């Protein structure tokens, strides 16, 4: 019997509610947005909409594996415990570490943090949230005395000016972006400013785009502070009564003229003037910022330079205004709440405060609590490389891909004495290096809570029974804890027990006597199992004063600093640490794509998510393309002094000259050389320890491919034997983009070798060859069913893959299709739909273009009415608008 379960999306930090219609027997689920959830009110983006395609058991890790052999949980846990215990007894607690993830549920996070800090006695637990959120955390701490997001999503609708800073929300937080788009439609006064070196899809709704020089944000906001002061647009009363440090901040902000600031940021002075004047004149202003701010060696300062402007104008804590950090991961906030970063303790308490340490130790009943910060992410892998950390457990993340200087991470793990990885996916670049693999439950099986960007705690609920022998992460942690002798402190029967304890810790001595902490779930400290099961999505704090939660903090001007006042932070702008030079003259920027999530372990299972941007690419400005001899759609090699990658050249003037952009998603599982992590400089912010992932000096060269090609195969292939390959999973097919430095002697034999057919099957191969152009094509057809296609040419211009790929969904080819399959063009009279634009409804570019032409469509709404394209998540609207604009 199908049943409907409400849960939460596991991707970005928007934290959308999902209504899942589950068929437990068939293990299928129909996903729709939860119309009652305040984060999304029923909307979902392309990734969330496709979650039903990711609950497949394909590729799942279903069984513990020790040294490559399947084993029992008993054996696996004993091995884990032995490795940790032996390491600790020989080298001390700081020789073990846990590296976690913003994908973990709060309950998982809580017990992992408790075990490491409270009982093993080391703070060597850090997470991939370090890579995305820690500058915001540090900025919040400095300004507010606590890691507090002051506002909420509802403020988007109340604002009159929304600034997106270093955020391509259209792709990375699509549902929030749609909310802003809708707000803009409803409120003609609402202006949107996008501050980003790249012209992204988010600029689609921008009244003003400021393509500032990479890394110059602090100059821009220092300049704004100075301007506000100069224009007397500051709120003197607010500054005096509720803040400290204004004059120091103003002094460091300098007195540079607007023209000088514009020069520093490489912006037209007129545009900067427009932005400054809008900010000065608009009371309800929201500054939404994300990785473009955080991922910087001065990320914390950048965060504070933004917050400074809000403090100076008193625009914080009220409806429709305030700085607002768009969180990257579904539970980065939850991780912060439990103290899941190496410098945090627990429940927004820190090592810097001896009373906090004592408090947490008493609460946990721990005699062995860590007393100082552990290794942050980059430090942790350096410590592994240096042999200081000898046993590590990596939970639900893929640092061999996502870390900066990722080749060094791989090298470090390769020589580490003991690497355990718990994951729901069997084959990742990181599991490849594990001695012990622990099967974790996936999104559809886990049960617990997550917290989104607006402090809203939502339940993630299990849709299915656990697959294979997969276990909850918290269970695995408690089993380790028991084996290390801490059974009493980890006697949880379920997630609800953990959540109650977590809530109780947040409430523990959280009062006027001991000092108030922002993070307070005292209303939940005693909830029943039933209440936990039915927990509605609420924003913390949840306590006696706010039993239903609180939308905004600081309306009362009460900050969590020692003085109770908000702190201006004097910011001295600094350039990114590694400047471009003669050998590495370009700046590499990295980021997310619309339809992929992190290292693609889950989104790449959903074929429709693989169509929008099917291949790792590098965006290059036309001037740089010419300068470095890069042809459109050819392959380029990008090198930094840390590593290299290959990517498809996309020439676009949406990026500035001197800058390159590559997506962060591709891994060794999906591409021979598409991992960008190896290139990125391991420079970190001295305060937040967040890496500067958006600024690495690189050089780019044409990859001297002798041939380009692609292969489509019904079955998955082993890694193709050529220098460049990239795998993309489609519906009933796998797509391999290929290129090589030398041609095989015989293409048919090569193709047979890749497909790896049993025996010596030669029948059924269709071939096409143009010796003059170096073109070779072959199709493997068995009883009229297409099983494989190979297209080879000298250059990157090859037939469109879409129609060819669609043939794999057919049980049999029509004679006309068979006849022309190697032409790459559909039979006359049938047209392919082109590159997928709308992933939600799978509408292709050619379909949209044809409808625009034949039906005279003029607006995005027309296209939506006609084809449904753009009517769900809306993240393709910018592209649809582009098609409308480009119509002949």
């Amino acid at each position: 019997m199908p049943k409907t379960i409400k849960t939460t999306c596991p991707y970005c930090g928007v934290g959308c509610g999902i209504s899942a219609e589950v068929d437990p027997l068939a293990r299928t689920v129909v996903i729709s947005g939860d119309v009652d959830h305040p984060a999304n009110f029923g909307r979902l983006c392309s990734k969330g909409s496709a979650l039903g395609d990711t609950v497949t058991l394909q590729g799942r890790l279903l069984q513990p594996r020790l040294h490559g052999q399947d084993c029992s949980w008993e054996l696996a846990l004993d091995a884990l415990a032995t490795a940790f215990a032996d390491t600790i007894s020989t080298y001390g607690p700081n020789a073990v570490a846990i590296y976690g993830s913003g994908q973990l549920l709060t309950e998982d996070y809580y017990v992992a943090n408790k075990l490491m800090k409270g009982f093993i006695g080391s703070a060597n637990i850090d997470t991939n949230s370090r890579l995305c959120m820690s500058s915001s955390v540090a900025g919040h701490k400095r300004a507010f005395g606590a890691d507090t997001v002051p506002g909420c999503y509802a403020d988007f609708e109340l604002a009159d000016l929304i600034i997106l800073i270093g955020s391509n929300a259209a792709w990375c937080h699509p549902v929030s972006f749609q909310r802003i788009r809708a707000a803009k439609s409803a409120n003609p006064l609402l202006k949107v400013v996008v501050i980003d070196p790249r012209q992204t899809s988010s600029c689609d709704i921008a009244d003003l785009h400021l393509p500032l020089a990479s890394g110059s944000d602090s100059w821009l906001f220092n300049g704004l502070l100075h301007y506000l002061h100069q224009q007397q647009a500051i709120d003197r009363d607010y500054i005096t009564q509720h803040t400290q440090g204004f004059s120091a901040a103003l002094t460091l902000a300098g007195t540079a003229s607007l023209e000088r600031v514009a020069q520093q940021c490489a912006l037209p002075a007129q545009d900067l003037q427009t932005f400054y004047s809008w900010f000065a004149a608009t009371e309800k202003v929201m500054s939404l910022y994300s990785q473009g701010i955080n991922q910087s060696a001065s990320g914390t300062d950048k965060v504070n330079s933004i917050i400074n402007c809000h403090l100076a104008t008193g625009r914080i804590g009220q409806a429709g205004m305030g700085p607002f950090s768009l969180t990257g991961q579904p539970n980065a906030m939850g991780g912060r709440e439990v103290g899941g970063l190496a410098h945090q303790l627990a429940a927004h308490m820190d090592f810097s405060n001896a009373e906090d340490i004592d408090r947490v130790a008493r609460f946990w009943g721990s005699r062995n609590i860590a007393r100082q910060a552990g290794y942050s992410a980059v430090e942790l892998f350096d410590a592994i490389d240096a042999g200081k950390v000898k046993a590590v457990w990596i939970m639900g993340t893929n640092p061999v891909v996502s870390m900066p200087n990722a080749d060094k991470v791989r090298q470090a793990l390769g020589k580490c004495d003991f690497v355990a990885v718990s994951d729901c996916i069997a084959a990742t670049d990181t599991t490849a290096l594990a001695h012990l693999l622990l099967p974790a439950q996936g999104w559809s099986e886990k049960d617990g809570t997550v917290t989104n960007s607006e402090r809203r705690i939502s339940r993630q609920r299990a849709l299915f029974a656990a697959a294979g022998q997969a276990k909850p992460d918290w269970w695995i942690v408690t089993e380790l804890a028991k084996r290390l002798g801490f059974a009493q402190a980890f006697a949880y029967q379920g997630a609800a027990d953990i959540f109650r304890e977590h809530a109780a810790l947040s409430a523990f001595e959280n009062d006027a006597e001991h000092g108030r902490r922002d993070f307070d779930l005292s209303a939940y400290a005693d909830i029943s199992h039933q209440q936990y099961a039915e927990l509605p999505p609420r924003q913390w704090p949840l306590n006696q004063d706010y039993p239903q939660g609180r939308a905004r903090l600081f309306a009362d001007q009460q900050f969590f600093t020692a003085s109770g006042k908000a702190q201006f932070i004097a910011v001295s702008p600094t350039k990114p640490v590694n400047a471009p030079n003669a050998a590495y003259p370009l700046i590499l920027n990295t980021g997310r794509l619309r339809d992929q999530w992190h290292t693609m372990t889950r989104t790449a299972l959903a074929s429709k998510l693989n169509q929008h941007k099917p291949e790792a690419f590098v965006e290059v400005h036309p001037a740089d393309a010419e300068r470095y001899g890069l042809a459109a759609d050819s392959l380029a090699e990008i090198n930094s002094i840390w590593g290299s990658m290959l990517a498809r050249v996309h020439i676009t003037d949406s990026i500035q000259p001197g800058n390159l952009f590559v997506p962060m998603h591709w891994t060794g599982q999906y591409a021979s050389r598409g991992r960008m992590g190896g290139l990125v400089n391991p420079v970190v912010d001295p305060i937040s320890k967040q890496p500067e992932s958006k600024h690495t000096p690189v050089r780019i060269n044409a990859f001297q491919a002798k041939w380009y090609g692609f292969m489509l195969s019904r079955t998955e292939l082993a890694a193709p034997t050529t220098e460049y390959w990239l795998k993309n999973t489609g519906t009933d097919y796998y797509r391999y983009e290929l290129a090589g430095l030398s041609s095989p002697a015989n293409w048919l034999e090569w193709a047979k070798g890749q497909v790896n057919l049993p025996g010596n099957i030669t029948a059924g191969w269709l071939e096409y060859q143009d010796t003059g152009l170096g073109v070779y094509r072959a199709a493997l057809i068995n009883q009229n069913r297409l099983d494989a296609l190979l297209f080879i040419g000298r250059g990157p211009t090859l037939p469109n893959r879409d129609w060819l790929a669609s043939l794999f969904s057919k049980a049999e080819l029509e004679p006309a299709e068979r006849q022309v399959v190697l032409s790459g063009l559909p039979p006359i009279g049938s047209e392919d739909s082109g590159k997928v634009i709308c992933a939600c409804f799978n509408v292709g570019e050619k379909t949209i273009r044809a409808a625009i032409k034949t039906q005279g469509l003029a607006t995005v709404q027309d296209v939506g009415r006609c084809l449904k394209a753009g009517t769900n998540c809306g993240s393709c609207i910018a592209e649809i608008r582009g098609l409308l604009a480009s119509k002949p």
Partner: protein
Amino acid sequence: MKQRLVVIGNGMAGMRTVEELLCAAPDQYDITVFGAEPYGNYNRIMLSGVLSGEKALPDIVINNRQWYAANGINLQTGTDKEVVKIERSRRSVLTRDGSRAEYDKLLIATGAKPVIAAVPGHDLAGVISFRDIADVSTMLNYSRTHQHAVVLGGGLLGLEAANGLALRGMDVTVIHNHAVLMNRQLDNQAGRMLQTALEQRGVRFCMTSQVQALLGNQQQHIRAVRCEDGRELACDLLVMAIGIRPNISLAQQAGLFCQRGIVVNDTLQSYDPRIYAVGECIQHRDTTFGLVAPLFAQASVCANHLSGHGVARFVQVPTATKLKVSGINLFSAGDFSGGQQTRQICYQDPERAIYKNLLLKDNRLVGAVLYGDTEDGPWYQHLLESGEDISARRDALIFGKAYADRAIVRH
């Protein structure tokens, strides 16, 4: 008074010329036609259809005797009326029975003769060629009374004969002196596919073989063929199909300039301005002809000049070959010699027995072999003749006109 046109030869080239002439200038000539065979004229290239049983004789008649009468043409056939001499000084032709026909213009269309291999026994009974209705009758008679047929020559004509005889129930072996059937028109791959298809129809092949001798019985009738490798094949009927040779003896006797054929200029005029020649008997710029398409082109040009219009010019274009074996689609045109500048576009679907090979030079089509799917043969023929640059649609060229006309879509 009308001029007199005498035509020697009642075959396809000569009569097509007459037909064209009747259209262009119906009243210009009194026309006399001399034919060796006792019929009106018929479509010689459809003889293999008659042999295989797909056609009956009346089906292949182009013009019956009534047509000649109706058009005022004096048709002279039979051995008595065979032309034995051209008397250029008298502007007349002399027939075997001593009668003469005078001309103002003479058209020689004497065609070609089958090449007979110079091997011992070539004059045995049961050794024939495949040229005319009489040969087809002979083959049909043998197929009813005898079992073993050997065809010498794996070219177009030999294979049509072999297929026809096999269909008529004979055990047929083709002896071919080359590893590839129809090696003048096909490449290795197409030749192999053709061989396989014919083998599936029961025809056997001795490839790369030479005949050493034809062996007869006491009645001087062929009984076996001995190959150079010593093999002997039982043989009741041997069909020679190893080529044709222009029939130029009359022209040579008359002192017209001949090399391999009667040498003509671009207007199909011989070295005697009153004498024209068309068809398999001519040589135009070093080329002789065996396929029908250029013959018809010659007829058109020749009629244009005979009628006095005098503007047409015969231009050689690559000629397409089609094998007339039911169920085997094969098309070949142009040059297969290859060479350094030649580029190849090749397509094959072995399961469907489809193979296509296009040869390009300087982005122009110079040769095409199609096996299994010949639908686009005429288009390739057109491209060969027009010599147009195909680079814009090269990528889809082999998939046919409809495809090639669409631009290739970039990814």
